């Protein structure tokens, strides 16, 4: 049993707001859903499956499904942090393959910018979580958890701040063409390494933006996809995993992408060299470097060298990534970047990315994300899509 070819992404919508002081989180979810259904050419009444994660207000999917007045046969609120929505696409394909639904709606939204949330502030991720009493007192936040990965990567492999900076530089080259991006100025390696240190060795420009916003996807059965007017974006492979501290055998040099990636490639029947465009979760520059290694785009430890000299810039390098500007420059709604990763991959496969960053003959694309903290325990989700 495989999900290859069992479902298509028919609708994708990124909410244009980056600061939504005048809207509620539920409203942003629903507005994103409106946009994705309109993009697909479907209506609310066509939806029979709904997927959301921890950013949705209320108990699991119940409050949002009720707000939108959906009539559902299938519900799923898998939450593995920021990559949840990449998993949701795979779960929707599974549900469609087994006849549980035909039109699956996935939504994400949040307003961390309006609410003043920052990745530099420690926050309790479940007071009753068994790790909280041991780790929350350390002041572990988001940025310093990822920074410990960066420090170890530098120690083990000789990765430099300048190499990490190239990830941001590439994102900024793409963001200049995105009118909705929060940060549209092209930056240099020097500007990144001279920006203030937040948590050593990560600088301010190694960190993604904090933005309000949302996004939604519509995943449908093949016969529905073919009845619509949109280009066909087929789901061909997916993988998911997680990695923690392994009972104290902590190893910060790799991510759970070492499992989710190969599973997705095997199901899709493609290799990293077949990928024309990759959306890679860029909460921080180090996140991209580690995931690129773990997905097999380069050898372990070579990620810093791989991303240098513009290798991630569309039209310049070997692996065009995050052509919307990514989390580093465009948008990181709800502090969860998974859905925007799928949305930009869909744009690329449809040929609807900005002409300046559109990858030529983009027939196979990958979206990969990390959820939670790479430095303590995290989820990973990989999705491979093909233009039909």
């Amino acid at each position, binding site marked *: 049993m495989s999900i290859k070819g069992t479902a298509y992404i028919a609708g994708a919508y990124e909410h244009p707001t980056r600061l939504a002081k005048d809207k509620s989180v539920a409203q942003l979810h629903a507005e994103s859903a409106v946009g994705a259904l309109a993009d697909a050419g479907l209506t609310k009444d066509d939806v029979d499956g709904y997927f959301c994660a921890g950013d949705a207000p209320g108990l699991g999917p119940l409050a949002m499904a009720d707000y939108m007045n959906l009539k559902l046969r299938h519900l799923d609120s898998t939450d593995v942090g920021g990559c949840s929505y990449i998993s949701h696409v795979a779960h929707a394909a599974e549900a469609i393959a087994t006849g549980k639904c035909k039109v699956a709606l996935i939504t994400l939204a949040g307003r961390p910018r309006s609410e003043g949330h920052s990745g530099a502030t420690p926050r309790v991720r479940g007071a009753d979580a068994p790790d909280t009493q041991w780790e929350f007192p350390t002041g572990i936040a988001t940025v310093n958890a990822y920074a410990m990965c960066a*420090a170890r990567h530098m120690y083990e492999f000789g990765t430099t701040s300048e190499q990490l900076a190239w990830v941001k530089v590439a994102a900024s080259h793409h963001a200049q063409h995105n009118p909705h991006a929060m940060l549209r100025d092209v930056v240099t390696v020097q500007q990144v390494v001279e920006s203030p240190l937040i948590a050593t060795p990560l600088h301010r420009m190694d960190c993604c933006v904090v933005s309000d916003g949302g996004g939604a996807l519509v995943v449908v059965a093949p016969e529905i996809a073919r009845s619509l007017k949109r280009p066909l974006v087929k789901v061909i492979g997916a993988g998911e995993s997680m990695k923690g501290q392994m*009972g104290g055998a*902590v190893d910060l040099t790799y991510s759970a992408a070492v499992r989710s990636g190969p599973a997705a490639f095997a199901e899709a029947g493609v290799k990293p060299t077949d990928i024309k465009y990759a959306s890679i979760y860029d909460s921080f520059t180090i996140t991209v470097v580690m995931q690129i290694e773990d997905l097999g785009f380069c050898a372990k430890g070579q990620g810093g060298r791989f991303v240098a000299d513009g290798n991630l810039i569309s039209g310049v390098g070997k692996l065009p990534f995050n052509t919307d500007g990514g989390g580093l420059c465009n948008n990181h709604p709800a502090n969860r970047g998974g859905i925007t990763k799928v949305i930009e991959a869909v744009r690329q496969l449809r040929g609807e990315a900005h002409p300046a960053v559109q990858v030529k003959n983009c027939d196979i694309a990958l979206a990969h994300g990390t959820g939670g903290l790479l430095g303590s325990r995290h989820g990973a989700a990989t999705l491979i899509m093909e233009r039909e």
Partner: protein
Amino acid sequence: MVKERAIPAPLVNPETEAFWAAAKDGKFLIKRCTACGKAHWYPRGVCPHCFSEKTEWVPASGRGTIYSVSVMKRAPEVYAVAYVTLEEGPTMMTNIVECDFDKVAIGDKVVVTWRPTKDDGPPYPQFKPA
């Protein structure tokens, strides 16, 4: 002496109260499994290595080596989070204190030191240069 960050009190539960009770006497305990013989962190009633329920509290030396460290600059009081690999094997998340934040580095030898926590919570184990 730099001003140190106030430390939130750990939320003690029945599985872990022996650790925090010993902490009040300055004793640093870890859990070891009597079935597979391996130590682990953080402490659990069920061994994460072999799934035995026969784990026991044992004294640890309190000495270790920094596996990774990051100095948080964007905070009212600068502080360092770290993973420290204990002599007994497991690696734990903690803080490095009483150190030069410009020099603290992976590979440094460190030793446990206790800090009071807010709301009369139990002392929390941090590490300082050995």
